């Protein structure tokens, strides 16, 4: 599992794809990352979420060895990135935030170039390129110049190049930035599928909802990880109430007052069309209580539905809590 404060300071074994302890990075006078502790287990799809400029890309670049940390210790696939040799790099895939291929080469030629960098022989390369381009729906566009394909195709081409050598650990930096919702969903499904095939995927994103589909999430703010865990654990930690929507005939003031009196209910308001909205600490527990209370008052409940707080609200709460805590620590 992903943990914010893993047990012990000793480097982990091979079951952990990425391990960071007390990692910091400074660019001149600017401290971009501070005191990062992380563990990403093998085989997980893991998300790093945070606003623009919070240090996500810096952290991803440290994970693949593009940047060296100025403080702390990092182990990627059980090896310090500073000591990476060809063997370690062979097991690592990286999708940078920006397109970093040759625009004047075709989709297929770019893939061939990258496959060559990973030492793939011509026959193996040919088979694997066909396989990956088909998997990412790029086969029909293989003869088009990279500069002529759409933004979504470019992202998929970059992803294809990162997958050609079948990496054990794939780091993808903002894979859906600038894409429309349909393409975002397509990329998200692909990453989930890649993870299901045994590759550990570590992605950074500023689209909060995407983090919800990950096995584990770390929330970043101002160069620090303020919370980490499964989406459910984060939601629980944020402690945000659920919202229950009720539809019943002839709701009156007395009915609303009865709902107010139920345990865990924080707020009740009426809506047009005989509807009411109840904000409760735990929606799953509140639904039967609301149904029973209205039935006791002779009201027929025609529809009732409980909704969790959005992950965006969870994120905002966690970030705000961190800010308050940091401020109090400073005081």
């Amino acid at each position, binding site marked *: 599992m992903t943990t914010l404060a893993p047990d012990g300071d000793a480097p982990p074994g091979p079951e952990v794809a990425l391990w960071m302890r007390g990692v910091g990075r400074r660019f001149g006078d600017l401290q971009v990352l501070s005191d990062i502790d992380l563990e990403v287990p093998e085989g997980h799809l893991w998300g790093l979420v945070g606003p623009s400029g919070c240090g996500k890309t810096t952290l991803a670049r440290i994970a693949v060895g593009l940047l060296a940390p100025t403080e702390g210790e990092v182990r990627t696939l059980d090896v310090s990135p500073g000591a990476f040799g060809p063997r*370690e790099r062979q097991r690592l895939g990286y999708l940078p935030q920006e397109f970093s291929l*040759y625009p004047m080469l075709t989709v297929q030629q770019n893939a061939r170039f990258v496959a060559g960098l990973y030492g793939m022989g011509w026959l193996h390369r040919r088979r694997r390129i066909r396989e990956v381009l088909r998997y990412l729906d790029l086969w029909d566009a293989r003869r088009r110049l990279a500069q002529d394909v759409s933004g979504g195709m470019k992202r998929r081409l970059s992803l294809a190049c990162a997958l050609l050598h079948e990496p054990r650990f794939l780091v993808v930096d903002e894979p859906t930035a600038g894409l429309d919702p349909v393409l975002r969903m397509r990329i998200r499904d692909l990453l989930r599928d890649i993870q299901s095939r045994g590759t550990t995927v570590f992605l950074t994103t500023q689209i909060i909802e995407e983090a919800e589909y990950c096995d584990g999430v770390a929330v970043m703010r101002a160069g620090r990880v303020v919370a980490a865990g499964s989406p459910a654990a984060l939601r629980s930690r944020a402690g945000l109430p659920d919202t229950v929507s009720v539809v019943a005939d002839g709701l009156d003031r007395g009915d609303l007052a009865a709902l107010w009196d139920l345990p865990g209910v924080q707020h009740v308001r009426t809506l047009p069309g005989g509807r009411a909205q109840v904000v409760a600490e735990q929606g799953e527990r509140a639904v039967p209580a609301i149904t029973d209370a209205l039935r006791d008052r002779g009201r027929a409940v025609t529809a009732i539905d409980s909704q969790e707080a959005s992950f965006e609200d969870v994120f905002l709460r966690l970030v705000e809590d961190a800010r308050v805590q940091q401020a109090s620590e400073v005081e």
Partner: protein
Amino acid sequence: MRRSIFGTLSFFEQWAGEVVRQPTLMFTLVVAPFLLLFAFGAGVELGGPRPRTVVVQEPGTERVLEPYLAELEQHLDFRGFVESTPLARRALERGEIDAVIVSPGDLDSFVDTGQRIPLRVLIGEVDPVRRSYARSYLRDQVAAINQRTIARVVGDAQAGAGDVGALTADARRYVDLLDDARGELETARSQVGDLQAALGPLSRAVDEASTTAERFASVVPGLSEAAEQATRLREAVDALEQTVDRMAVRLDGFGEGGLPTDEDIEGIRTALDDIESVAGPVFSLDPAVISAPFELQLEDVTPIDPTYTAFYSPGVVALLVQHLAITLGALTLSRMRLLRVTEMLRVAPIRAGEVVAGNYLAYGTLCAVVAAALVALAVFVLDVPVSGSWAVVAGTLGLLIACSLGIGFVISLVSASAQQATQVAMLFLLGSIFFSGFVFPLDRMQAPVDSAAYLFPATFALRTLQDVMLRGVLRAPEDLVVLGVAALVLMALATVLMRRELRAA
């Protein structure tokens, strides 16, 4: 090993894929240098043109240069006479003419006072090379005028003394008659009178010749010896005249007692022998020999007769190939940075040496194709010979490419941007043009500036290509050693810098 090979070759594939898709790039890289060399070979006519020249001849003065104009016109483009120096000077300043010769006016006034005749020539050239060429060319022309003047004077002197031989023969005949008439007073008187009469023209001819020779001896170098001999000749003739005159006086005063003795007759014959012996060498020599005793017999041991195109083509090839390789090298890695391909390389299992080797392979191939095309153009279209080994020509170009690509890669790796890399590459081109020996010969450069020449691979390649292609010999094999060592050092340096580039920041 297998991974290294495929990794290295991937750069070649990437380059090939990009280049074939860009016909304009191919044109710029291959055809444009080809056209440059072709235009150079076909259109450049070096050497000095015949300067457009006018002669200032003030009204009423002697046209002293006129006898030389026909011959000078072979070397000067004679545009006519003008009447004043300011007028000619304005034409010179406007660029309508290249030179003005100011006629010296009255030659005799200089010659008679023993002064050399000033031949004033005005030029208005600002190009130092053409200026130097004009000075040298005009100095040659003045030397030619001097030489022709000496020949003319000597010729005149010889013409004046041309009949000395015939006149001494006449005198000798009268001496024989005098000898026969010994004892007959009247006949002897008559023969002495005839001898006196015969010596008169001889004396005048010798006078004329010696006067001419002496007159010009002070202004015409080389004529002083002839003048001295002419003086000795005149003294000999004067002495003979005095002897014969004394004989005539003796015959008139003493009658038969004054008849010439055997010693008198022999004395006259000896004097005539002296005259002939002195006159012979002076007046029988060819005036051209006296005026210009040395004749240039130039023998060129080079196996070919090089044209300007043939001489400059190896240099043009070396400069174009060097510039192409440095520019490509300088832009390649800058472009990788710009496209963020280096980001991918830093994550991929590829070593710095493999990246450098891959780029050497890719761009070395392109440069080799361009170099081969340029040499083929030079040899088969512009008729530039390859008198020596083709293998050495190919090897020199190969080393030049390796060295220049190394410089380009190093420039690229130490430059902050593609613009900076391009500027440094251009500086290398400019430096090569000035210092490689292409424009100015290396031995004409002053220390320590001449050391700059050895910063450019083109310097070594140009010298070797010229030697092998034109002379047919490799005169400085150490140049190839220098290129080879520099190529290896630069490759190693590029690898070290690339390793730094690919290291985590």
